[in-house]
């Protein structure tokens, strides 16, 4: 377990969370180097296919972060996104596919400290859960056998 270092793909909204991550860096808050940041115009730009294909490509966790409700640069983008993420989470829970691997957060541009904290906690949680084996695409011989029970 000690050698496992999770990889996280983070979709950060350009206006709040990306600036929050920047602030964490500028104010020299240490946080784990597990993060790979993808800058998106708004949290509502993130689609389920993007999240799932990040996991498919081998990420151990996906962090989606946007502005606080009411602070969205596009006024209501994050409120639309919230509904979608809620439904996505319910769907993933239903098919038993580790919804803990996908985290959602509202982080504003002034919350650099909090950004570092979120990343730290998410990384710790993923260290506990272990590497992503269910979602990751590896070449397999057919017929496929269910390996997780």
């Amino acid at each position, binding site marked *: 377990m000690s050698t496992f270092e999770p990889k996280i793909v983070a979709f950060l909204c350009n206006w709040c969370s990306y600036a929050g991550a920047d602030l964490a860096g500028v104010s020299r808050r240490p946080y784990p180097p597990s993060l790979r940041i993808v800058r998106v115009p708004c949290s509502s730009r993130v689609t*389920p*296919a993007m999240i*799932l*294909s990040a996991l*498919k490509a081998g990420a151990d966790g996906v962090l989606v972060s946007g502005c*606080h*409700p009411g602070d969205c640069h596009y006024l*209501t983008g994050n*409120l*639309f996104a*919230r*509904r*979608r*993420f*809620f*439904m*996505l*989470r*319910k*769907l*993933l*829970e*239903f*098919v*038993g*596919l580790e919804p803990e691997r996908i*985290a*959602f*957060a*509202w*982080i504003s541009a002034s*919350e650099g400290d*909090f950004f570092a904290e*979120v990343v730290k906690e998410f990384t710790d949680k993923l260290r506990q859960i272990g590497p992503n084996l*269910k*979602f*990751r*695409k590896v*070449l*397999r011989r057919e*017929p*496929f056998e*269910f390996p*997780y*029970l």
Partner: protein
Amino acid sequence: MNSLTFKLREKARQILKEGQAEAILAFTEGPTPFKPRLALIKSPEEAERIVWPGFSGLNPLTLWPKIKDIKTAIFATGCISRTLAVLIKEKQLEREEIYVVGVPCPGLLDPQKIPDKPEIKKIDEKEEKIFFETQKETKVFLRRELLRETCLSCRHPSPTLYDEILEGESLTPSKIPFSRVEELEKLSSEERAYWFFEKIVSPCIRCYACRNACPLCYCPQCFVDDSRPQWVGKTRDPIDNLLYHLVRAFHLAGRCVNCGSCEAACPLGLPLQVLNQKLIKEAFENFTYEAGLDLESPLLFDTYDEKDPDDFIVTAKRKTGG
């Protein structure tokens, strides 16, 4: 012959004679009793070909994008009228373009529930009883024994949107609309994952019949056809199947009207509708939303509420408790 078939033919003749519509999109007799064919009926004489599609679970509105510049009538059961409402809300067609004849739906039947299917020569539907003629004998089944799973979970069998409605009795609305979902929710997360892999992901050959049969999957280019980025791989790797099924279900969240076309079209008989029903259930419980009941209210993802559930989102405020 089914009494509904007579009613449909009579109504079709009347509509074509009186000119409410120039054509009628309806099911006609197909090569086997289980496979009625969709056709565009344009003259009163042709109306003799129309049948009530007892065993076809396909939604005729799938063909809608192919019909152009002709005022068309359609026989709409509950699910078809709800599909229409969603399509109209999504600006895929105008209300005036289509003449809707409501049909109180007695429920469609599932061919997979019949034992010894290949021998059957002729099928007769009479009210609550279904007769199957084989070479030797006539077998009788009760309608409710053969109803499709989606029809058993149908909450609105009567059409909600129509220009006129045929007389008749429809199925009683289901009291256990989400029984299949709730059964699975009782299981543990691992068991559900096993169910999902065993029943859907692993056997799926990804023929995309479920997508093509869905009247609401009308995108000119589906996300599975994209090659840059290529969301879904080309082989039937389980992870690609998984991604396809989850995203397909999600694209229908708040739109799916529970018509069951996907399940009826699936050559392997996979329970695809369960994923959609889960999302229908969540939309109903958390947002009191049901797709296609009227033309005014916005679609689930076209609107938002300040008070939407957000306890799954991490914020600094919630962490400090202030």
